[in-house]
């Protein structure tokens, strides 16, 4: 895990039923991971409602890979379904991996790890390690 500074960093995509949650997670991750990691959000339904918007998710996924790929984190239920459908449509157009991780802890772990310049696979591992993080 030795940093390399001469190439693109892995990005993050945050997908939530709530735009406020997605934006808040992105804000928190940026605070911890620093300004160099690209974080793209797709939060809420089509009309500012709670839900997910397939078009917004697809657009976010298309923008997320700036060369090193991106890890995708979701909150619940239909967010997962929307991301899976969008990934199937993009069909390898971008280097994206859906992480099986809790949204807040996974995003922070992924963001800080991405900032060190490691490859996508290592960032996904960092996100998924958050599953085992105990609070107490």
């Amino acid at each position, binding site marked *: 895990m030795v940093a390399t500074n001469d190439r693109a960093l892995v990005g993050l995509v945050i997908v939530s039923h709530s735009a406020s949650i997605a934006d808040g997670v992105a804000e928190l991750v940026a605070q911890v991971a620093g300004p160099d990691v690209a974080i793209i959000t797709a939060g809420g339904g089509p009309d500012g409602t709670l839900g997910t918007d397939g078009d917004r998710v697809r657009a976010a996924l298309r923008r997320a890979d700036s060369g090193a790929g991106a890890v995708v984190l979701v909150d619940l239920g239909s967010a997962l379904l929307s991301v899976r459908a969008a990934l199937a449509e993009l069909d390898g157009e971008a280097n994206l991996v859906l992480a099986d991780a809790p949204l807040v802890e996974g995003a922070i772990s992924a963001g800080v*790890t991405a900032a060190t310049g490691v490859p996508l696979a290592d960032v996904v591992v960092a996100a998924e*390690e958050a599953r085992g*993080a105990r609070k107490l």
Partner: protein
Amino acid sequence: MLESSELVRLPGAVALHARPAGAFVRAASSFAATIEVRANGRQANGKSILEILGLGADAGSVLTISASGDDAPAAVAQLAELVAGFS
């Protein structure tokens, strides 16, 4: 295998939370050595943001930074300086 360890006190106004914790982990990750931080009777992998945040190290508390590996002395020196300089 080199071992190195140092005690350092967090400055009075800085807890090892969000931004400082992230800066610490990013710096720690630039070394090959394994890095451990102890505070409040807990220990954390210095390269894991969730473990570092889990230390709950408040402003003014003392961290023990230990490293093991070829670049351990440099790692501990740089990380101790980083912590002491947090503002």
